[in-house]
């Protein structure tokens, strides 16, 4: 599986793992708690709300490439599609790296 090389943050206070689309009440709860030192990782159905989340988030937002591909969101190097915005696609290896870098992890 090809994936763009992502620049991971050097430090993450809270890694927010979101797996629900933006209509879901818990997605709104998640957005209300984000800080600039945090990172959001969109997985499963949440990749479909990448542009909404990226617009609202004060911090870096990543999405799992496998979930994006499955749902027809194609990564273009540098720029995202209209649906993905500028959210970088990463693999499970980078998901592990994000979780290792994070002081705290919240699965929404």
């Amino acid at each position, binding site marked *: *599986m090809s994936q763009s090389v992502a620049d991971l943050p050097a430090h993450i206070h809270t890694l927010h793992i979101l*797996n629900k*689309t933006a*209509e879901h009440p818990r997605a709104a709860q998640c957005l209300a708690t984000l800080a600039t030192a945090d990172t959001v990782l969109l997985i*499963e*159905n949440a990749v*479909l709300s990448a*542009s909404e989340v990226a617009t609202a988030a004060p911090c870096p937002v990543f999405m799992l490439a*496998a*979930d994006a*591909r*499955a*749902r*027809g*969101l*194609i990564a273009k190097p540098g720029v995202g*599609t*209209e*649906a993905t915005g500028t959210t970088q696609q990463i693999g499970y290896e980078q998901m592990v790296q994000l979780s290792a870098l994070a002081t705290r992890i919240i699965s929404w």
Partner: protein
Amino acid sequence: MTVLIVIDQAPYGRWSGREGLDMAFSLAAFDQSCALLFSGAGVNWLRTGQQPDGLGQKSVARNLGAAAIFGVEALYADAQACHRYSLEGDAIINGVTLIAPDQAFMTGFEKVTFAG
């Protein structure tokens, strides 16, 4: 006398959307009149270029494109939801009728059914 099966869950994250499709194709297989409505996050079933093999799932976009051949009478999609999810132009499969899923639309169906 048409049954409308409504799918409002995005693909692959949960199984109920797939189970709704199974219901529609079963109705069609038994020559019962049926149509599909994709609403809310469910409209994402209609996106072109889905490659769910990486998740161990099969793409149904091709099946949906041939829904008429299988006997499903129409594919409807919530126009507002399509806009929200940037499902426009090439991004949406052919053969989908955009509608507003309001009272006027729903009243035309004998039954309206969710899979879960």
